[in-house]
Each structure stands twice: as structure tokens, then as C-alpha cells.
């Protein structure tokens, strides 16, 4: 190391002790990344409007017909989640695939070569952003939906059993949708491919589940990612097969937290597999 004695750097020296990679620094960096591109704001705005808007339409539709004893006004007002899950899924996938498509990933990894730390920071920052905007989406949908249903006295309130859990659950559901998509983005790396896979997993799979024979639906459908995950934003759980949920999926369902745990399991598998490959692969 002969360099030290040749000359001191003249372009603004820095004490070397401050220049260290930390998880806190990685978190701040990822938050800067997500807040400094316009597409984030557009995606989150679309997510909120879509959840509340479609929830309002679904809520209005329930007032057009007679509802049975297992009618679940909370989950109908949250019905927009069926589509807005795709928006948060797209944002989750883009958090990583946009780095690949722009080449930013090489710059990011040069600054922060500890890849596990980079993924952990991305996951944490995205989860926080998704949960906060998810809460806004969820509560807005609930309030609007109940207001529409109140004209027919089919509405519910947050004090009813399971309702507050369902509304907060809507935000949890969106968050985990996004994380599942982030994991898929890590695995696939290409935006178009990742978005197709996310849409297939979140949206198309439950539709296919409905085509199964009824005897199969009871055993298969509850395991589908979004079906399992949707139990957390369902307040009323009938003791038998239910085809009247906003998800439109028949079959026996998991209990709310069990279903959510299954859903989290899928996201964890996608993220873990994505992380393993991310650490191994060339950037």
C-alpha cells in the first residue's frame, strides 16, 4: 500500500469511518428510490381509486337484490381488491424489474454489493409503502361501500365481529400481494414476464379454480394464493361452501388468519427463491 504516502486526496476528503454500508442506509436508499419516480405515485393512486371505485360498484350491486344470512357487507365493500391486487402486484414486481430493465441494478450493486441487504431493504420499504397505501384504500372502500349499503340497511360497522380485522386485512392482503410479486420479479427479472406471471398467479388461477368439479373445489380452491389470502378481508365465514363471496370462488375456505398465513407462505417462498437466485446470478 504505497498509495497513502504519495499524496492526500484533494477533492473533498471524507473520514472513512462514516462510509460504511448499514441496513439503515440501505432502507433510506430504497425509500429514496421508490419516492423519486413518478410511476410510484401513479400506481398507488390507481390502486386507491380502483379499490374504492370498484368497491362502491360492488356495494351498489348488492343493494339490487335480496341478501341471505351469510351476506358479508364488509368484504363486498372491499371487493375492489380483486383488481387492485394486480396494481400493487405490478408495482412490487417493478421495484426490482425496473432496475434490471434500466441497468440501474449494476449501479445499485456497485454501491451496495451485499445483495441480501439490498433485497431486505427493498422488501421492508416496499412493504411499508404498500401497507400504508393499502390502509387508505381499504378504509376508503369500507366507508364508501357502507354508506351506499346503508340506504338499504345492509351495512355494517367496524364494531361488528371480524369487520375491523377484515378492513385492516385488506391492507395486509395488498401488502403481501406486492411482496409475492416482488419475489416473482426477483426470479424472472424481466418486467413483461414478471407481470404476466403475477397476473396469472393472482388473477387467472382463481378463475380456473372455479372451473373445477365441485367436489374438487372444496379441497383445491382454498389453497390458491389469492383465495387463501382473501380470507383475511372476509368478515363472515359461512360453515359450508360459499359461492357468494366477492371473489366468486366456491369451496370450503380457511379461517382468516390461517388463510393469510398460507398466502404469506407463498410470498415467502417466492422471496426466498428470488433471494437465493439473486445472490448467485450475474447482474
Amino acid at each position, binding site marked *: 500500500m504505497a*498509495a497513502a504516502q504519495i499524496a492526500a486526496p484533494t477533492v473533498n476528503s471524507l473520514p472513512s469511518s462514516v462510509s460504511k*454500508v448499514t441496513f439503515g442506509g440501505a432502507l433510506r436508499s430504497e425509500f429514496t428510490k421508490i419516492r423519486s419516480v413518478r410511476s410510484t405515485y401513479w400506481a398507488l393512486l390507481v390502486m386507491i381509486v380502483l379499490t374504492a371505485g370498484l368497491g362502491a360498484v360492488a356495494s351498489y350491486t348488492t343493494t339490487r337484490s335480496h341478501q341471505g344470512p351469510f351476506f358479508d357487507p364488509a368484504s363486498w365493500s372491499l371487493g375492489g381488491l380483486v383488481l387492485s391486487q394486480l396494481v400493487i402486484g405490478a408495482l412490487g414486481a417493478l421495484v426490482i424489474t425496473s432496475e434490471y430493465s434500466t*441497468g440501474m441494478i449494476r449501479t445499485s450493486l456497485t*454501491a451496495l454489493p*451485499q445483495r441480501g441487504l439490498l433485497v431486505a431493504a427493498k422488501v421492508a420499504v416496499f412493504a411499508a409503502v404498500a401497507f400504508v397505501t393499502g390502509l387508505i384504500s381499504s378504509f376508503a372502500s369500507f366507508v364508501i361501500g357502507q354508506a351506499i349499503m346503508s340506504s338499504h340497511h345492509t351495512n355494517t360497522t367496524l364494531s361488528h365481529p371480524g369487520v375491523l380485522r377484515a378492513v385492516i386485512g385488506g391492507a395486509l392482503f395488498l401488502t403481501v400481494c406486492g411482496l409475492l410479486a416482488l419475489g416473482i420479479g426477483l426470479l424472472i427479472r424481466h418486467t413483461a414476464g414478471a407481470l404476466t406471471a403475477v397476473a396469472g398467479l393472482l388473477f387467472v388461477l382463481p378463475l380456473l379454480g372455479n372451473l373445477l368439479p365441485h367436489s374438487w373445489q372444496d379441497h383445491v380452491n382454498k389453497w390458491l394464493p389469492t383465495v387463501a389470502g382473501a380470507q383475511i378481508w372476509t368478515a363472515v365465514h359461512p360453515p359450508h361452501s360459499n359461492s357468494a363471496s366477492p371473489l366468486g370462488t366456491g369451496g370450503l375456505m380457511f379461517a382468516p388468519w390461517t388463510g393469510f398465513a398460507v398466502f404469506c407462505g407463498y410470498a415467502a417462498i417466492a422471496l426466498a427463491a428470488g433471494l437465493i437466485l439473486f445472490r448467485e446470478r450475474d447482474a
Partner: protein
Amino acid sequence: MIEARGLTKRYGGTLAVDNLSFTVEPGKITGFLGPNGAGKTSTMRLILGLDRPTAGTVTVNGKPYRRLAGPMGQVGALLDTKALHGGRSAYHHLLCLAQTNNLPSRRVDEVLALVGLANAARKRCHGFSLGMGQRLGIAAALLGNPRILMFDEPANGLDPEGIVWIRNLMKTLAAEGRTVIVSSHLMSEMENIADHLLVLGGGRLIADCTVEEFIAADSQHSIRVRTPQPEELIRLVAAAGGTAKDDGQGAVVVSGLETGRIWDLAFQNAVRLHELAPVHASLEQAFMELTAASVQFRAAGPDQRVPTEGVS
């Protein structure tokens, strides 16, 4: 200090880097020289831990890059100018990089001023020209005030003013005692700035030497002589044990004899000399000869070597 030992990288069926061993010494400008596809960029990617070596190791200050606690304070790299999100402003691009290494945000403003982008700091990068993108990439490399800087083909696509700016910047950085690694396929560029050369061809290390050694090792020393009596001179040189031939452009090219010996021969035999000049092979010529066997994409057609004289 950067050390590679048996560094090898295979992408699919292509051997991009083939058993490279070298040491980049601190405080110098080291040039990675080689034709396109020689493995210059791949080697830099391996140094930065972006790609994993198929075999061998490469360390920065004794550690693999991925284990550096504060990488931006040790190495700054400009690999390609388009490695950024175009929707982000120059300021935020640098800020998110600085934050990973806990560098203060004022450092972002400092490097923006240093590269002359202070006025464009808040503009989104996708509107940047190639030169501005290059400056932004250099700003990112300088953020951590690193001791080692790597520039991959920094002059590519720049206008003459930009090339001079980059060249001066590299010289300044080296004068400050930093290690500068610069890759190029432009031999003339290297001749102007590099102290030391690592010449690559087909992924292999062809030469590891100073610029002067590189040229000297391959060029046969020859002397160009202008005289109104070429036939006589050729005969005299041949009799004295040297070789001489008419270069077809009114001069005689002599090799195998020292300059003084030619003067003496001419004086003793009353041969008038109008000019006598040593011919230096250019880096370009030496490079072409050394890498001829390993050039991957070679244009068909006759060899177009142009001897350049009196370069240095």
C-alpha cells in the same frame, strides 16, 4: 490494490476471461487495453462483484468486492452511462447511492458541482445527453471519494471537449495519488494517459508492462535516412552488417546499426545526409502485432498497418 489470480469467466459457451492474473498497483493510471470482446468489461464486472468468476479470485484491498464494508469509499466505477433509472433526477440518483454507504447528502451536491451538473441536478436523467450521462456516472463514482477509480471506455461517444475533460480528470485523480483503471480499445488514448498497461486479447493477458516497454518490446529499432545517394548508402550499410532498404517514399530505412554508426559511415564515404530520424513504433502498431492472433472480430482484407514515426 486490485489482485486477480487465475480469474476465469465463462458466459454460456464463451470464455470471456481466461485465467487472468495481475496486480493493479496503487497511485498509477493502469490501462486495460484490448480490442472489442477482449474481456475488459467482463474483468471490471468481476472486480466489482457483479458477476461471479467461474474460477479464480479477484480482490480489492485484500477482500472480494462483495465483502467490502464501505465499497463506495474504496472503489468508484463508471461501467456504462445508461445504468440508471431515467425517471429519476440526477440528484435523487446520486442520493440513493450515497445513502447506501451513509455518505452525507451534501456530498451529492459536491460531486454534482465537481462534474458540472449542478444546474441539471433536478432534471430527470432520461433527457440527458451522452456527455451529461457520462458526467453523472463519474459523479456517482466520485461520491465516496474512493482511492481506486475504474472507467470503462470513458471516451466512447464523447465530443473532443468531453474527451479532454475526462482525460484531465483522470490525470488529476492520479496526481492526487489515486489508482485509476481505464479501459479502452483506442491505443492513442492510452498512449496519452496510462502509466501501466494490461493488454488483453481473447480474454487472456497478452502484456503487463509500462507503455514504453510495450512499444519497445515489439518494435524493431529502425532509422529513417534521407539522402540524395540512396544506392550508395544501402551498399555501405549492407557492408557494415546492417540492413537497409528503400521505403519507396524517398527515404532509406536502416536497421541493425546505431545512429552514430550511420553518421560515421556517411561521413567517411562522402555520402550526403539530409535527414536521419529514429522510427518509433506507435502503441497502435505494437498493439496490432501483439493481439493479431487474438482478435475476435477481424475485418477481412489486407493488413493495414501504418507505421507512425516520431510519436514520442
